[in-house]
């Protein structure tokens, strides 16, 4: 299981990376915005994408839309982990095809729950 973590704050990338490691996912890579993440996704064989929304360069929502529009990446499971909490934004992310939405600040428990749920659905 190869996972890409996209967040402009290295602290948050590290937190998510540590939580994922505790959950048994040790093969992770990092990117600091959508425009660096997209080429990595296109050239690497990632199984899962965890992304923030608000980032300089390409935002998480635009990254999600690019991923869904790319024939090779369209079915990649995407979890959004973000401080963006407007109802309209959550609806937009859902319509863009996000697989899970976690608002910051979050707990290890919530992150685990959402990831489990995504893979249950993907594998089921």
């Amino acid at each position, binding site marked *: 299981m190869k996972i890409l973590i996209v967040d402009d704050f290295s602290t948050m990338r590290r937190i998510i990376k540590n939580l994922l490691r505790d959950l048994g996912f040790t093969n992770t890579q990092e990117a600091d915005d959508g425009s660096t993440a997209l080429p990595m996704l296109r050239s690497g064989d990632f199984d899962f994408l965890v992304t923030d929304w608000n980032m300089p360069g390409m935002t998480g*929502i635009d990254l999600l839309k690019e991923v869904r529009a790319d024939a090779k990446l369209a079915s990649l499971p995407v979890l959004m982990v973000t401080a963006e909490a407007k109802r309209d934004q959550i609806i937009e992310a859902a319509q863009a095809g996000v697989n899970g939405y976690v608002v910051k600040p979050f707990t290890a428990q919530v992150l685990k729950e959402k990831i489990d749920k995504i893979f249950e659905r993907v594998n089921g």
Partner: protein
Amino acid sequence: MANASLRPDDEQFIAKLEDSAKQLVDVLQNQEYKTASKIIHELIEARDKHIFNSVGQLTRALHTAIVNFNVDADVSTNPPEIKNSEISDASDRLHYVLSLTQAAADKTMDKVEAVAPIAMNLGQEAQRLQDEWSKLKRREMTKEQFKALVLRIDEFLEQMGDGTTQLNKSLQDIILEQGFQDLTGQALKKVIELVTDVERELVDLMRIAGQVEVVTGLANEDTPEGAKREYSSQGEGPAMHADKRDDVVSGQDDVDDLLSSLGF
């Protein structure tokens, strides 16, 4: 607005207007055209003087308001070159907050990552020793096994001593690292003060602009629509006063409810 912002100067001018109007009606009824002409002339002078005074006052107020922004800029260049301002000082402070919080978060995580294996190893060894200990209590242990157990316990106690010393040190370091809160707090308070000041100066400028409109008769009846903020796809970061707003979720449970209502 015009009536609300009457200054003594305006009142004086209006009083003069009313006075002159009455006099003018009187002299005209008496067909004293020379006097009437003189009154009209005085009236024009009074109006000019009033406008001159008003413009002078506004210019002074404008100057004060701009000086209060404390911007040291070379306006002869285009765009003006800002040498020094409280705004750029505030930016520096915010960058300082950013780097300090980042450093504190990194150091804290470094410390935790460094000592987490110690705690985990001690826990695991304690569990294994407990299993052996139970065997001993059930008298299921040979003399050789017992000797080995004594050695392991010796070793464990030593590890325990060293390990907890390291853990304690790291915990203390982590506490000290929280000092960033004090420093960033002071920097942020300064910035909050500046934002409040700038807001007040801007309101002053708006008031002056309003008076310019009154004096010049350019009063604009169309009040601009209150800046209504839509979210942009750029995102806007954590929502403030989330508990008092309907358009933002109040937590993960709210997100889950919203998503399940959308069929997730």
